[in-house]
């Protein structure tokens, strides 16, 4: 596993654009295609928005780490907010009218559609770690 970039900040909603810039710049160095970068930016924006609004009530510390694992790109998002597992949010039944779906579900729904991997764990010292991944995004290694 190779770390491609990391960012720590006391985040507010006004930092969402800067966070996307960091992801876009880090991804451009390793030549990730723009559609995949958009998906990752959308997922991270939705998750951090939820954390800031509902976990922190406005602002709080966020850590983002971008990693490469073989052909996969992973993003680890850590916060110090009360435990909350967005992956436990029931997948919305899109055949149902929107008003009967659970609140906050739209952002998590878009996140789920944007990435191939989406997992959560509570950190031992408090807070949350969410892992997002795009699978097989890097080309296969050339054979010698």
């Amino acid at each position, binding site marked *: 596993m190779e770390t491609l970039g990391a960012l720590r900040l006391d985040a*507010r*909603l*006004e930092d*969402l*654009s800067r966070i*996307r810039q960091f992801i876009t710049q880090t991804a451009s160095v390793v030549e990730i295609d723009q*559609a995949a970068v*958009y*998906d990752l*930016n*959308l997922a991270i*924006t*939705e998750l951090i*928005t939820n954390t*800031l*609004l*509902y976990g922190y009530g406005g602002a709080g510390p966020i850590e983002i780490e971008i990693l490469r694992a073989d052909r996969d790109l992973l993003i680890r998002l850590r916060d110090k907010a009360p435990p909350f597992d967005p992956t436990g949010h029931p997948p919305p039944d*899109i055949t149902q*009218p*929107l*008003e*009967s*779906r659970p*609140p*906050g*579900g*739209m*952002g998590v*729904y*878009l996140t789920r*559609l944007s990435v191939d991997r989406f997992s959560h764990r509570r950190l031992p010292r408090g807070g949350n770690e969410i892992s997002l991944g795009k699978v097989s995004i890097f080309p296969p290694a050339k054979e010698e």
Partner: protein
Amino acid sequence: MQIKTESVAGTPALSIIGLEGELDASNFKDLIGAAQKLYEQGTRRLVLDLSRLNFMSSSGLVALHSIARIFRGDAPSDLEAGWSAIHAMGEDVQRGTEPSVKLVNPQPKIASTLQKTGMDRFFAIYPDLQAAVNSFHDNR
């Protein structure tokens, strides 16, 4: 995000809002505010030009829905109630396409978000500005 507004001659009053940049939770209320101001100044038909908007999160969906409510003469969505505002959309989608607010030329990823969330059934989406403006004249 830059918000540019423009009035177009005609009755009832028609305005265009052009968005440029990124629409997310940090600025979606600015967009709603701009639309609200136009409505208060007499605009009754609105075209939202999305062609230069290159990012939109679910906050943007809340803004679009809230603007549709304003132009229908309803109270804007209760933004302080959080994303529950978006729940009201389901009921509105059942009513059919929004007649007073039209969208123009969303970039492919934003068009995909509109489609995945069913917003493309709620808003008529036109390929260019002129087609959206003409659509109001066609339906007089």
